[in-house]
């Protein structure tokens, strides 16, 4: 279905309850703007392969909108790559849109760093992890603090393959992400972490769907947010285990740290289990900084501000604790630490 024929989703839909479509659309909902390209390049400046716009049809409004808006279409096929691949996604102009298709046939580590200052940025990433392949994927959002950002991802994880997926979101003014992964073969697994530092009046809505279609599949999601100022974070999860997908193991944990009285956070993990013999767990917690942790650090000579910064830093870094690839962990930790140090100096 094309975007212009689609109905605006009601707020009763789980996905659109907290950030309705009109709030993330770049203008008025019946308009499709002329978008500039998001430019994807490898470290060193080499541009990614450009492809024709595929004739896909989407029945989900954000994806249909990104297709209607056009922008750049790129593809990267990776066979086996021992060194991490860094992709810079540079957005410019008023409205910028980019599409990236990743295909992984061996073992690889890929980072996408998105930056730029447009009023609105849209990004659609699709990925296929072939049987017995492994991808460690880091996404770092460092967009300007006035940018609205819509991000959709669709991952297909085949038999005996593995996706490690980490998000660090510290940029943008209003951000909506809809990240979907399908475990499409026995032995497929995903470990996913989302780390969000929300300051000022930032609004961030992260929706993560993981679908277990086959048995003996594993998923592990950790989502940590720290909310300061009058920021608002929403983390929603949808975990489904299909009928017959026995011996699947799934876990979702959402934690929010509230750093001011005006900051708000929602954590809503949902489970739909249609198989009999599975292990599925979810948990959610929102709380201010623990007073005993503060006292402990202050009793070791740290000021209240230093103590809180150390606790927040640790809390956010801890979201990466379910990851295993050392390049991925190191890069995400470094980016987060640099960001928090810059925040502290402001």
């Amino acid at each position, binding site marked *: 279905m094309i975007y212009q024929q689609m109905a605006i989703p009601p707020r009763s839909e789980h996905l659109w309850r907290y950030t309705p479509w009109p709030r993330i659309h770049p203008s008025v909902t019946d308009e499709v703007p002329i978008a500039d390209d998001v430019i994807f390049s490898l470290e060193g400046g080499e541009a990614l392969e450009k492809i024709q716009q595929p004739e896909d049809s989407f029945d989900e409004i954000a994806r249909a909108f990104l297709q209607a808006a056009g922008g750049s279409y790129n593809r990267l096929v990776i066979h086996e790559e021992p060194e991490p691949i860094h992709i810079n996604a540079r957005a410019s102009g008023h409205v910028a849109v980019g599409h990236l298709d990743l295909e992984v046939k061996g073992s690889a580590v890929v980072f996408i760093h998105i930056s730029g200052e447009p009023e609105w940025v849209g990004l659609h990433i699709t990925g296929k992890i072939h049987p017995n392949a492994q991808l460690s994927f880091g996404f770092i959002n460092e967009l300007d603090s006035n940018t609205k950002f819509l991000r959709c991802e669709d991952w297909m994880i085949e038999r005996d393959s593995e996706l490690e997926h980490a998000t660090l979101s510290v940029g943008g003014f209003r951000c909506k992400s809809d990240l979907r992964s399908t475990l499409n073969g026995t032995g497929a697994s995903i470990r996913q972490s989302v780390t969000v530092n929300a300051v000022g009046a930032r609004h961030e809505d992260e929706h993560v769907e993981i679908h277990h279609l086959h048995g003996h599949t594993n998923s592990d999601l950790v989502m940590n947010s720290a909310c300061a100022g009058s920021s608002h974070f929403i983390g929603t999860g949808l975990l489904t285990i299909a009928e017959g997908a026995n011996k699947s193991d799934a876990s979702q944990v959402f934690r929010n740290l509230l750093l001011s009285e005006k900051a708000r956070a929602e954590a809503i993990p949902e489970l739909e289990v249609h198989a009999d013999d599975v292990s599925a767990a979810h948990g959610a917690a929102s709380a201010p900084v*623990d*007073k*005993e*942790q503060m*006292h*402990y*650090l*202050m*009793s*070791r*000579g*740290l*000021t*209240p501000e*230093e*103590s809180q910064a*150390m*606790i927040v*830093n*640790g*809390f*956010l*870094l*801890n979201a990466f*604790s379910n990851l295993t690839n050392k390049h991925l962990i190191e890069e995400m930790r470094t980016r987060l630490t640099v960001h928090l140090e810059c925040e502290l100096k402001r």
Partner: protein
Amino acid sequence: MAEEILRIENLHVSVEGTLILKGVNLTIQRGEIHAIMGRNGAGKSTLANVVMGHPAYVITEGSIFYKGQPLEELAVFERARAGMFLSFQYPAVIPGVQVGTFLKKSVTSVRDVPPKGREFRKELTAAMEQLSMDKSFLSRYVNDGFSGGEKKRLEILQMLLLKPQLALLDETDSGLDIDALRIVAKGINEVAVDSACLIITHYQRLLDLVKPHFVHAMIDGAIVQTGGPELALELEDRGYEWLDVTA
């Protein structure tokens, strides 16, 4: 001439409206080791926590002086920077913060002249070897997943690095096997030479290894008996009932 480090006068402390300490008096000079013994709930840990400035404890009457200065004038971090240290009975878990990072930050905060990187690493290695701690400790998160004994060792490691002038040790011996106890006691004895030390304990066994100059028995929020090391042996032997009459 003896130098007064800690003076507590007629201290009354309440927690959430309940009076816990009911007139504690205690003076500790530099070079002295004091031990406080008492039943659970007698107020021993409250005393240590209130001296370190825990916000849950309210002083309703009396005063505490550190090197002659009223403590209420000092925030918690200022107390640490002035040379006060509490080894917590239940140290906080700080997920995501590596022990190495935490120790460096703490030492840098407390010392007037922060050590340089290589100098700090050398000092840290020596202290860890003394406590038979593996280097892998440094990359673990602070107290996260630590056993009781590991937590206590980390507390003593901090004490060795921070070199306090007043060390408050709240049940540092609990949860330690005899080998670990010897190692920890060695660390305490090293620091105690040039500082004032207050040990809170239930057991005589630590006091066999760290010889106190004074032992105090606390009953229902007050020190009711003070003596030498022999008092600890008597308490271990006779329990506290005989002091209830005195109290």
